[in-house]
């Protein structure tokens, strides 16, 4: 039963991403990206990563789409062909190599990635290296060492406190960048003497 849900989820994720690429209406593309994020959140929940799912639902489906729509309000809704003078027009090569080469590159990259998955341990294998290294320590010690039942919070706020401080500073820096780039201040008029 759970396999059917998995297959449906993955199918709709692929459908959403392909649709978002091919749509000319940017508002619809944003809405479809929000649906994509929501499906990803469900997928994370299926994989038992509830914290990631929560973040994906709040940030990916919520804030990101609102911010993208806000960005869209500064531009136009539809992708369109802009009439540019000939000397500035993008050069379009109409050769067989431009049609074949991307497919070749994509196929080779995909094949290499598939080859890489052969060596990976089986899904949910308790003897996989990732489950042998630091994870048992965290699972065993997080409750009495860090005082948090949720191991993810214990790692974020306690074991990896420096990383989270850096992360918060990055968010702060992003806000400062947007303010510097986009804020229009009304300066008091000064007479240049």
């Amino acid at each position, binding site marked *: 039963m759970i396999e059917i849900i998995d297959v449906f989820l993955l199918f709709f994720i692929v459908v959403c991403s392909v649709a978002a690429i091919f749509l000319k209406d940017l508002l619809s593309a944003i809405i479809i990206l929000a649906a994509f994020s929501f499906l990803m959140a469900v997928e994370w929940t299926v994989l038992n990563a509830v914290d990631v799912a929560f973040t994906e639902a709040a940030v990916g489906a919520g804030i990101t789409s*609102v911010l993208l729509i806000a960005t869209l309000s500064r531009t136009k809704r539809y992708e369109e062909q802009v009439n540019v003078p000939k000397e500035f027009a993008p050069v379009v090569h109409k050769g067989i190599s431009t049609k074949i080469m991307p497919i070749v590159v994509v196929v080779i990259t995909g094949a290499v990635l598939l080859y890489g998955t052969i060596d990976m341990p089986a899904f949910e294998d308790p003897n996989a290296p990732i489950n042998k290294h630091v994870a048992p320590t965290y699972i065993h010690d997080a409750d009495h060492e860090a*005082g948090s*039942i949720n191991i993810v919070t214990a790692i974020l706020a*306690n074991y990896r406190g420096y990383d989270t401080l850096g992360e*918060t500073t990055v*968010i*702060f820096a*992003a*806000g*400062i960048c947007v303010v510097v780039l986009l804020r229009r201040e009304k300066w008091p008029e000064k007479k240049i003497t």
Partner: protein
Amino acid sequence: MARKEDHIISLGVISKILIPFIQLYSYYVLAHGDLGPGGGFQGGVILGSSIILYVLAFGEEEGRKLVSQKFNDIFSSVGVLVYAGVGILCLIAGGAYLEYSKFPLDHHLAHHLGMYGVEIGVQITVSAVMTTLFFETARKDDETFESKKKKKMEPSNLKSS
């Protein structure tokens, strides 16, 4: 963004009903970060989105009455300072930076309070930055793409620049 003339009553009523619950939920997510999924980041995003909902429903002017530009700017840095301040407190208590167990409290309680302080800092910064991002990226009512283009093309503007 909603302008004053296209204000919709139902939108305003529904958002006024929903916003307190959304904000309460954001604090629930923050406070239960060590029991269930969630924490400062998610709580901050939810708090920021409640303010964004208010701005979407009532327009930018009303939103600026609720959270002014100065308020936003100050609080986006206050969060980082709270986070760093918890680390400094640990230094004063005699431990390493962000070593909560050196607080003169019960070991469990010290870790708990340290983590709460840190998460509150993250929430303040994230919510303030998210609202700032929305305020700054959304189009101001007086400028559209066309009017901006026209303004640039006007000869008086070209001369002065």
